[in-house]
């Protein structure tokens, strides 16, 4: 028969007593996700300020320019919200919801890319830079693709690192999946701002450079999640 009110073992009590500093309760997943919003918005805005808005905003119209980006941003916050749920042991969401949101995010990026191209098939880089730089980018479009890809990945990477720091103590059952979701959220949030700045609409550029950057942040998030998960496993073993 088991002791009706068991006492914690001495070793456990000693470990607990060593660190009993008061801690603030964690906010809920939605509040956590919304708190990530301002930083994501700040980084996206900095990109817009640095590069400037694309020259064909009037052709695209407010709905396709700002509305599509706002939709991507909202979906990015939704992904972070799902990741925050996945990181809470008793509040995980059903897998179908998780997968359908990831598929919805991919389809949204694809749809917005194709709609943007069909509305304004801008293929020439027109940036606020000296004309000879624009000419160089026109002759060698891969430089533009490389710049967008690296720039988006670095900006997304900063967000992923921030997310990882905020959620470093969480106990996700599937840390790689949770990390990938944070990465997807970060990549999508950055893409929401970057697509308003990038002057090239061609699908190969938008999907090849910007899409690769989103994938890179997903992979980075998954790797960080896996590392944090392994750290937990080592602590257990």
């Amino acid at each position, binding site marked *: 028969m088991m002791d009706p009110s068991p006492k914690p073992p001495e070793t456990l009590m000693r470990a607990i007593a060593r660190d009993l500093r008061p801690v603030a309760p964690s906010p809920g997943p939605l509040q956590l996700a919304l708190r990530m919003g301002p930083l994501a918005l700040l980084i996206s805005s900095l990109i817009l300020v640095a590069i400037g808005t694309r020259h064909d905003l009037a052709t695209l119209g407010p709905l396709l320019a700002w509305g599509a980006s706002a939709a991507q941003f909202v979906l990015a916050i939704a992904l972070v919200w799902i990741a925050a749920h996945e990181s809470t042991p008793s509040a995980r969401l*059903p897998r179908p919801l998780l997968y359908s949101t990831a598929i919805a995010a991919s389809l949204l990026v694809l749809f917005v890319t194709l709609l943007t191209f069909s509305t304004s098939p801008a293929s020439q880089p027109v940036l606020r830079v000296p004309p000879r730089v624009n000419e160089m980018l026109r002759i060698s479009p891969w430089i533009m693709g490389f710049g967008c890809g690296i720039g988006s990945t670095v900006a997304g990477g900063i967000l992923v690192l921030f997310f990882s720091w905020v959620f470093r103590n969480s106990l996700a059952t599937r840390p790689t999946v949770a990390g990938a979701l944070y990465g997807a959220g970060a990549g999508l949030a950055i893409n929401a701002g970057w697509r308003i700045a990038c002057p090239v609409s061609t699908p190969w550029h938008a999907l090849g450079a910007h899409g690769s950057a989103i994938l890179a942040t997903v992979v980075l998030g998954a790797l960080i999640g896996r590392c944090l998960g392994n750290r937990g496993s080592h602590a257990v073993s």
Partner: protein
Amino acid sequence: MIRYQGGSLQAFEEIYARLAPGVRRYLWHLTGSEIADDLLQEAFLQMHRSRAAYNPQYPVRPWVFGLARNVFLMNRRAARRWSQVHESREDLPDFPVLPEADRLGSQDEIRRSLANVDPGQAEALLLHHEWGFSFEEIAGMLGISAAAARARASRGMADLRVALNSLQRGRA
């Protein structure tokens, strides 16, 4: 839990006294070996490390059980002894027995039959019938919908009945 987050050692002891027996039996169910006792201490240590991650809007019990499940899965990943864990299921001295299933057979028969039920279904079945979690709480712990949790528990009970019948027929 809020008092514990505020730094009360006594609050921790109260949480341990209330939850440890159930968590221990749950870990016994998951591991089927004496490693459950080590994992129990590890689960409470993880709870302490992650106490800042607890949000008062959620009930404490499912959170701690979910955390214990994570500790078990992390341990399984680290040790990579999944097959060994299942091999030792036959020797469970403290394996939980469903109160609802009590009338269906002896405790030993139920234990043996539960080992033949799909692990996912057995887990949902035990979480609901043995530890009294609602299907919504089970859904949050397992990452499935409440309907799926209900279906797993229901299928588990049906499979348990079948396993019990065949065991009893075999003995007769």
